[in-house]
């Protein structure tokens, strides 16, 4: 398997935008260590949209912040692995290079549009500062572009002098999106961009993101716990649990024939909008605690198909098809 992995890497390296290799992240504070990310591998190609799914504490946001090398200082540490953006190591970049990359080549949209916009600066300025930084233009010039961008997402250009609190939740998130996309980045990371929004507003934002991703031809890393959003927006999906990717592959295959019992559990725990009403299957136990992770497969304590092996050995990624791999001992025999 390793060999095929290498071959694959060489063959597609040219259009690889992002490659996360065996990423490990720890949070250290007050003597405690939380292992938030434990060996994540993920590759994003040009123009591709990949979803990252998991419940709270699965390590999704930590992975996103690691890509920008923006883990909280003094508590968050990348202990192992590397992240390659355009085949350059993000971890080896200087602060100046990083600042060029952030916002210029990688844009990020945050979960809560209210807290991720600075309350005491106008929205115009918060978009313009990206342009001023990366395009090297003056505020006056930048404001013209900001106006166009605002109009593009359906906000009157004249509102650029408004403060975040003067906008509705949906509008704020649009501002967040254009601030991330202002410099046409190659990669857009969206961290739960619609969680804080109402259903009809969420629909607006999703349509907008679809449109913009196509227009800007950027790659998209979509982080969410909402499987429906992934299904609409992404081609491939990675399911995270306990800081690891447990299942990875095409959205269609994983959602119709999940192989990991956690993915199966997630899909059967959500009530559906169509079809017969079935009893929900709740997963027993609690989401794995990053401060006290179990040995072996992180999910084994909650798994109904747990084998002896699962309790002590971490399962590797087994390739099921070209488009689908899973980290579960239960499928080992089937491959």
């Amino acid at each position, binding site marked *: 398997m390793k060999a095929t992995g290498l071959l694959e890497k060489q063959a597609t390296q040219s259009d690889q935008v992002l490659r996360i290799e065996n990423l490990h992240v720890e949070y250290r504070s007050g003597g405690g260590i939380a292992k938030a990310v434990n060996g994540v591998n993920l590759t994003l190609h040009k123009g591709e949209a990949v979803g990252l799914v998991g419940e709270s504490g699965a390590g999704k946001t930590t992975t996103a*912040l690691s890509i*920008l090398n*923006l883990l909280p200082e*003094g508590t968050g540490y990348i202990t192992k692995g590397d992240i390659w953006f355009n085949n350059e190591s993000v971890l080896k970049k200087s*602060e100046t290079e990083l*600042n*060029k*990359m*952030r*916002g*210029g080549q990688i*844009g*990020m949209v*945050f*979960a*809560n549009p209210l*807290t*991720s*916009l*600075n*309350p*005491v*600066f*106008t929205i115009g300025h*918060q978009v313009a*500062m*990206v342009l001023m*930084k*990366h395009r090297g233009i003056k505020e006056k010039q930048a404001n013209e572009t900001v106006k166009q961008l605002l109009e593009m997402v359906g906000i009157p250009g004249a509102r650029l002098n408004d*403060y975040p*609190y*003067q906008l509705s939740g949906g509008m704020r998130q649009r501002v*967040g999106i254009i*601030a*991330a996309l202002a410099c046409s980045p190659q990669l857009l990371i969206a961290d739960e961009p619609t969680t804080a929004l109402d259903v009809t507003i969420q629909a607006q934002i999703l349509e907008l993101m679809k449109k913009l991703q196509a227009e800007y031809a950027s790659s998209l890393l979509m982080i969410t716990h909402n499987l429906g959003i992934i299904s609409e927006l992404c081609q491939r999906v990675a399911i995270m649990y306990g800081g690891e990717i447990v299942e990875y592959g095409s959205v269609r295959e994983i959602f119709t024939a999940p192989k990991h019992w956690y993915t199966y559990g997630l899909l059967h725990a959500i009530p559906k909008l169509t079809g017969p009403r079935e009893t929900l299957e709740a997963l027993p136990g609690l989401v794995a605690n990053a401060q006290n992770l179990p040995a072996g497969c992180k999910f084994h304590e909650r798994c109904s198909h747990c084998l002896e092996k699962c309790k002590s050995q971490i399962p590797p990624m087994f390739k099921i098809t070209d488009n689908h791999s899973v980290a579960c001992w239960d499928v080992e025999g089937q491959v």
Partner: protein
Amino acid sequence: MRNNLLKRLGLTVFVLIGVTLIAFVLMRLGGGDPAVMMAGGMATKEEVQDYRVRMGLDQSYLVQYLTYMNGILHGDLGYSWSYHTSVGEVLSVRLVQTFNLTLFGFFIASIFSMLLGTIAGIRHGSPIDFVALLFAIIGQSMSIVWLGFVLILIFGVQLKWLPTQGLGGLQHMIMPGICLGFGYAAVQTRMMRSGMVDVLKEDYVVATRARGISKSRTYLVYALRNALLPIITNMGNQFGHLLAGVVVVETIFNWPGIGQLLVQAINMRDYQLVQSALLITSILLVLCNLLADILYTVVDPRISFQ
């Protein structure tokens, strides 16, 4: 915004009326007849009565209060019997001195505490943060009187660097200024530090950095402004503590300001002088709070619309 300001002004007037009432009632509660004080120990009953009439003390309390209020509304703060001149005249000279001293103390303390607090907040957990915290907690635990004495002992008596008494050049202001601003600086350092620590945890700080803005620019331009908000609101309040300290500091360093005057006036039972001195300090304090509020609306756009 305008409505808010008008409402604040209305409240302010109400508060000041309350202050005059308290001051007036207080002075009438106490023993010690000001007429006797003025007339001197040797005076006859008739002379005392004469003084009483001239000072307006023979009238009912209500009339006395209304007369006093009427005077204030016409810009007349009353007559000081111990200084034998109008209260306004006595106060205006003293007010300038208090103002000089307070502003001096306020500014050096503000600049010092904001610098120290900001650095400590950014370098949360570092040695400088520890020093800042230590300063903050010790500064809040020190008696102003004692601090004054120790300063005098070291810089005045032992080293003979600074004058210990009275008015003069800038060097006369250094010790009283430091003494006055010390506690205030401690409180503000602490607030600034924790404010900075809190703000740096906010989503928008990460969001700003994720847009490629450098760390120093993010902290000093985008985060600092947010961290300053609570400091500004607190400034008005803290100014009150500063004014309270003025009474003691002026007495220690023999600084002829309003604080020292108040102590003398109380001892002389100079009613109108005490009343007006209290009123003037309250006006100062209330104005500072108002100023802080206005400043706040300038820095925080959210307030003006609420």
